[in-house]
Every structure is written in C-alpha cells, then in structure tokens.
C-alpha cells in the first residue's frame, strides 16, 4: 500500500510539473507574439516620425492580433486556474465530461507536438461520479499519452464519456495499433497505482481499437 501511495504522489507531481511546463510555454509563446506585435506598432510610429506615411490599416491589424493573443493567454490562465482548483477537495462529485474537456485543454500542446488530433465526445447528459478529480485527471492524461503512441497512421484519438452501469466510463478510441503492444506493457505500475486509488478498472478492446476506463459511482475512501 505504501508503494502505491508513493507511486501516486510521484506520478501526480510529474503530471503537475509537466502540465505547468506546457502551460507556461504556451503562455510565453502568446506573450512573445504580443511583444513583437506591440514592437512593430512602435516601429511603425518611429518610421512615421521620420516621414513614412502612417499605415493605419496595419496598426489596426496589429491591435487585433494583440487582442487575440490576450484572449488566448486569458484562456490558458483560466485552464490553469480550473486545474489547480481540482485539488480543492480530495473527493468531489464531478461531471466526467467537464473533466475530459479540461484534460484535453491541458494536453493540447502535447498533442500538437506529436501531430495527433484529439477530439472529446460526451453524453448530452452529465456523467457524474464521486472521485478524486486530480488523480482521475492524472490517469486520463497517462492514458492519453499511451493512446497517442498507438494511433497509427490516422493520428487521431477520441475520448468519449458515458454513463456505465452504476458509474461512468471513458473510452479512448482510434487506437489502431493497440494489437501491437506487448502483453503487460500497459497499464504500467503508475496507472495501476492510480486505478487502485480510484477503485477503477482499465481494459483494452483490441477488436474495437479502444481503451476503456471504468469508474464507480463513488470511489471508496
């Protein structure tokens, strides 16, 4: 049990750190665009001071670009804020659909770098379970990392949240190369430790090229 808790803590820290790196990286990129666009406006005004006619249309385009990047950075910070609030309480009643949307947003850059497209499909109705949101986000993130490597040529992963028996289920679909993975290579010790905490279950469905994460209505304390 001690081993499981150590693994959960270490895996959680790794997830938190990698997510913060990715988010700060994306924020910096957005800030860099704002800085260069503002710098360009400054350059245009300096040229105007030297007698070059002021291109007002160009100024407007640059102002729009800066506003777009402010929106982008604002959205990134909102995502980070939601992510950190998921640790407010160890056990919460949550909608899995919202959690998947958040993890997808946190993983956006990771997917972009690997050239894989991620889509989130959810039930019209909320899929509610009582769970540890941070540990579940961590597990979904690890499953997505695994899924990205077994998509094959299609390079597309879909995550689907749905009501299942007394709880909820998350399907990771489009895993074309799932049959090629060696027995015992997934889930690893990390996923197994998180599964134990969440009282969840992971199975693979090679025929339908899916990974299934089944969650109880309420995880045991």
């Amino acid at each position, binding site marked *: 049990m001690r081993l499981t808790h150590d693994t959960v803590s270490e895996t959680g820290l790794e997830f938190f750190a990698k997510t913060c790196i990715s988010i700060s990286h994306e924020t910096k990129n957005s800030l*860099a665009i704002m800085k260069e666009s503002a710098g360009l406006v400054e350059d245009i005004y300096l040229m105007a001071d030297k007698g070059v006619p002021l291109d007002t249309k160009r100024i407007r385009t640059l102002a729009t670009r800066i506003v777009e990047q402010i929106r982008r950075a604002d959205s990134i910070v909102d995502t980070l804020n939601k992510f950190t609030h998921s640790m407010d309480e160890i056990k919460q009643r949550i909608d899995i659909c919202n959690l998947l949307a958040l993890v997808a947003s946190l993983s956006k850059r990771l997917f972009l770098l690997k050239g894989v497209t991620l889509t989130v499909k959810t039930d019209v109705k909320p899929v509610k379970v009582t769970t540890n949101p941070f540990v579940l986000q961590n597990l979904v993130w690890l499953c997505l990392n695994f899924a990205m490597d077994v998509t094959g040529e299609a390079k597309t992963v879909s995550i689907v949240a749905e009501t299942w028996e007394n709880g909820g289920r998350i399907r990771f679909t489009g895993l074309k190369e799932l049959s090629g993975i060696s027995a015992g290579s997934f889930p690893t010790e990390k996923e197994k430790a998180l599964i134990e905490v969440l009282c969840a279950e992971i199975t693979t469905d090679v025929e339908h090229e899916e990974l299934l994460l089944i969650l109880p209505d309420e995880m045991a304390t």
Partner: protein
Amino acid sequence: MKAKILIVDDEEKFVNSLAERLSIRDYDATTSVSGQDAIEKVSGYNFDVVMLDVVMPGMDGLEVLREIKRIKPLTEVIMLTALPNVEIGVEAMKRGALDYILKPCEIEELISKIDRGHARKTEQEERISAAEVSGRCYNGV
C-alpha cells in the same frame, strides 16, 4: 551588408512580426514554421544566421540544428526558447549553436546576437577564402 536571417518557429504570427521588425532594420529576413521547411530553405540559400525555436511539432529544434550544421556548417544558429532549460541549452551549444535567447525578447538584444553571428560567419568565410588562395599559391596555380 546586413545579415540574411531565417526565423524558424511554429508560431506563425510571431515569426511574421519579428521578420517585419528585422526587415524595417534592413535585415534580409525569411520565415519558416516547421523544421522540415527550414532545412529545405537552408539547403537552397546561404543564410548567415538562423534563429531556431527549440520546441516545435514534428522535427524539434535540436534535430533541425544538427541538420543545419551538417549541410551548412558556417551558418550560425541562435536558439529561441520560451523557457530556460539548462540541459537543452548545453546540448544546443554542443551541437554548434552560437547562443540562445528567451522569448519574449528585446529587439536590441536579438540584433546584437544576430550581428555577432553574422560577423563570426563572415570572418570564418574570409579565413577559408584566404586559406584557399594561399593553398593555390603554394601549389603554383
């Protein structure tokens, strides 16, 4: 003569704004939004300095750096990075990068590094040229 620069970053709006700012300052600036495209551009043109983002989809900056140094060893490369990472910085230097700069950056700092890279490349080209001339003289050509 001002330097011929290639700016490589997957953030298109960033490279475009930066290229325009450098062009205003009379630099010959070209842009690229992927590592593969950058390598093709470097193969076909004699850039003095390449400003290269470290983290990009597809080929990352370190892979692109290795390829640039293989095909155009004299072209100077300045790595662009959003976050300081000592390991990547050291690896980039080992692979022949001249320097690195953090985004967002001050244009004056960037220009100073570009000019240093340009001067170093020019000096190396002149040395090679002088060595070739003296070699021909020695061989009685």
